[in-house]
């Protein structure tokens, strides 16, 4: 149209589709960082549960103080063991889902990078600073 002079370094036109791709990339990038944080939290929770489970094996008390809400309820050791196992399983499932989503997001970002770098080459920077 009006800007595509060949002389000198003309800036490529940005179409609405390009803009939408850029927006989508930005959203994915944000989601990627959120996922990394969530994955870190899930991993920490699993570690804590592991530690708790190990402590449980070491202790010889029959009644353990197990945190429910804001208080520490007296719960028999077996029940605590079961609860910890359940929580570990839940967290493991959550972690798996998060990792899967992370992979999907990264794949989509790679696709968009190909498209955007293909059109804009040096005029666009999609790397983490």
């Amino acid at each position, binding site marked *: 149209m*009006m800007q595509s*002079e060949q002389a000198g370094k003309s800036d490529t036109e940005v179409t609405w589709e390009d803009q939408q791709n850029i927006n989508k990339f930005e959203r994915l990038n944000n989601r990627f960082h959120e996922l990394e944080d969530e994955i870190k939290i899930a991993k920490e929770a699993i570690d804590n549960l592991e530690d708790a489970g190990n402590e449980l094996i070491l202790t010889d008390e029959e009644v353990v103080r197990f945190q*429910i*809400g804001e208080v520490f*309820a007296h719960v028999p050791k077996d029940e605590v063991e079961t609860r910890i196992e359940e929580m570990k399983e839940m967290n493991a499932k959550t972690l798996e889902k998060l990792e899967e989503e992370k992979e999907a997001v990264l794949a989509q970002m790679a696709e968009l990078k190909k498209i955007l770098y293909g059109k804009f080459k040096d005029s666009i920077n999609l790397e983490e600073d």
Partner: protein
Amino acid sequence: MASTSAETTSSSSLAASTATPPERRGIPGAQFVEDVQTFLNQLGLDVNPALAFLQERLQQYRLVEMKLLAQQRDLQAKIPDIEKCLDVVATLQAKKVAGEALIADFEVSEGIYSRACVENSDSVCLWLGANVMLEYSCEEATALLQKNLENAKASLEVLIADLQFLRDQVTITQVTVARVYNWDVHQRRIRQAVAAASKDS
């Protein structure tokens, strides 16, 4: 400042700036610019005032973003709290069914704990905020907490969508700033080339 609704020329060959997207819950939509010259004419501004206007828009967006992020953090803290409450009520109900009393250590003051023995009770008191606490049966309490949890989750979803919309507008505005700036550099180069050419000839 909402831009005037551009002519919706459906299949026009002239590159016209697309109509401004509707604002969303108070967040102004960023106009996507098809052609920089048309955009500047439409704004009636020169390059530098236009850039200033766009920068100001970005500042406004940043302010709203901070506000929304704060709200999001609050909600994200509130949801686990409600889930903890549901946990406690469920535990009390389980104890009632088992016919046992609940013995728990609770914090009296920071670092100081005491033991409580909670006898079977059919009711719990819920803190509703504003210095108000109401007594509910366990079932009612569970229902109320459940509803609060769902509301909180729904609000969070809306908030996240708002943030996404906002970030899109910020990205569009940033791209527009870059394009206006590049266009200006390009124009200057052309003018210089023309001036140099006419001087030589």
